């Protein structure tokens, strides 16, 4: 996405509203599980799952699947690449907004 001055090449992967929400939530956390992201974003399980897969494929997200007792548990955390990408995205938005 190019800004009005043509210098804001926003990361399209993060720019999508649902993924932006997910990345913002994970940016503020060391790690979070699927259930927490589901509650906070209000997405459906399938929708959240597909967004997480896209972020994981881009290397922005690490997904660890395991069990606590008999309950399946999926924990997500941003990789250093994902953190850097979101920090860049925020800086670009600030520059665009002039704040």
């Amino acid at each position: 996405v190019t800004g009005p001055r043509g210098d804001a090449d926003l990361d399209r992967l993060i720019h999508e509203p649902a993924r932006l929400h997910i990345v913002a939530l994970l940016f503020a956390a060391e790690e979070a599980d699927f259930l927490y992201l589901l509650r906070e974003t209000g997405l459906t399980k399938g929708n959240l799952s597909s967004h997480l897969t896209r972020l994981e494929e881009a290397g922005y997200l690490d997904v660890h699947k395991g069990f606590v007792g008999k309950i399946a548990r999926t924990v997500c955390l941003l990789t250093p690449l994902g953190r850097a990408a979101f920090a860049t995205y925020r800086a670009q938005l600030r520059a665009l907004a002039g704040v």
Partner: protein
Amino acid sequence: MKTPNDAGLAATRHWNIDGLPDIEAGGLLILWGGVLAGHEIWPSRLTAIASGILPVLLVAVFLIVDALLVPRLKRRLTYPRAGYVRPRATPYRRGTAAGLGAFSAAAMMAWIAGGRGLDRPHMPSIVAGLGTLFLAYCGWRFRLPRLFAYAVAAAAVGLALPPTWPPDLGVGAFQVAVGTLLLAGGGLTLRRFLRIPVPETP
């Protein structure tokens, strides 16, 4: 959609959803207050040893519980019911926590080693006032109503402390009372939280 600041607040609020942090803080306050209130009756030799070891030991116990036990309990208790999130420990937060821990340990060492070194009659009132303000601030900052209830109760405890008590005993008793309050409040919150049925596997 949440901004990163909102997301940070949501993570912190979620971390406090189950009452475990209250129980953790309450336990530490009870130990801390017990050491302060009780050191007057120890033999002087024991006091000298305890002044060097106990504060460090208490801070170490708190750090171990905070880093290992609470996250583990949360994974077992909180996750299946409400989801799990561990707020990000930014360098600023780590620095603040380390600074507070070091300051508290140093203050207690000085207090115990100096016998009745901080023998000021208004100390219990000052500590009670600061404790009340801190709880109220946290309640406002994290939008957790139960912290306001703790603040009101802490103010009541502060007002109820007999002014004739020695300052060490007054401060220690305040900390034990507020610690008990946090422990009870955290226990009730946890009990209520555990009644939430575990949803089907995500």
